[in-house]
């Protein structure tokens, strides 16, 4: 588990370094993700332990958004000042986006390959 966590951190660290050195407009962890993807493709498979560690981390992905979410407390007044428009825009826009994206995908996607 520690080995796999270290692998994730090494990929992230390289990603952060690349983003800063090259001045890329994407977050460092995203470059780290591309790097790990490349490593898996090169190796031609997912090591057992890595699969378990990442599954554990991703099962609790929602936990990781909690601290930032509590930060809403800092900006209540900004939202409260225009709340009807903000709530209306958030709900309608989010739901419309989900509907359009998923419907277009259903229309265009090839039948699922269950092999």
């Amino acid at each position: 588990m520690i080995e796999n966590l270290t692998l994730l951190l090494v990929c992230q660290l390289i990603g952060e370094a690349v983003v800063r050195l090259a001045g890329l407009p994407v977050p460092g962890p995203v470059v780290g993700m591309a790097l790990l993807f490349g490593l898996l493709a090169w190796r031609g498979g997912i090591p057992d332990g890595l699969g378990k560690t990442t599954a554990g981390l991703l099962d609790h992905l929602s936990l990781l958004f909690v601290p930032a979410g509590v930060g809403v407390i800092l900006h209540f007044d900004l939202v409260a000042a225009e709340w009807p428009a903000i709530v209306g825009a958030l709900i309608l826009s989010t739901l419309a986006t989900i509907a359009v994206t998923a419907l277009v995908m259903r229309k265009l996607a090839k039948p699922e390959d269950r092999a």
Partner: protein
Amino acid sequence: MKDEFFELWVYLSTTPLTGLTVTLVAYLAGRRLYDASGRHPLLNPVLIAIVLLVGLLWAADIPYRRYFEGAQFVHFLLGPATVALAVPLYRHFAEIRRNAFAIAVSIALGASVAIVTAIGVGWAMGASERTLLSLAPKSVTTPVAMGISESIGGLPSLTAVLVILTGITGAVFGTYVMNALGLKDWRARGLGMGTAAHGIGTARAFQVNELAGAFSSLAMGLNALATAVLVPVVIRLLS
């Protein structure tokens, strides 16, 4: 006795241990309810944990900065978790590559709808210009959204809040929209979640189905790219 209690309180409210522990306890409470309900979307664990913690900070008069001294250890894991998304993406890469065209078109259209409807509805309901600019990148992951918001004259800190609220909205109500539309394809459902509701939607997608999670992760990443390109174009067309 009263003084001792006060001293204990002062100690506990300043140590990072407290912020970290209450974050985990609040999340586990939310997760228990969520799992007990068969992962009902309305009982979203992020939403429950945030409501509990905001209530606690407010009631005990604890500044967010102090809370975050402990909670940052959880927050920190977002980086390695993002790297970890490579694993499900790799696992389902054959399915992704087969549908590359469909995915690109769906996300490009979804990204456009996200930007135009956010600005359009906000404008129709009388939001200020600053709020409209802050709303435009609301569907993408926080660091990218804040960068876009700043570059077009929005308020990055307001955008950060709107991004979180968007993620929760998608994770809580998205399931109902897709069920109402009769969408059964996990690839399409995941793509919709990730495009509209970034990481919080992706967390929900992973809890429901791994294939949906992989497509949601992909959509979250590609929509960050699409939105960064499209927002400045839309703003120029409108002004």
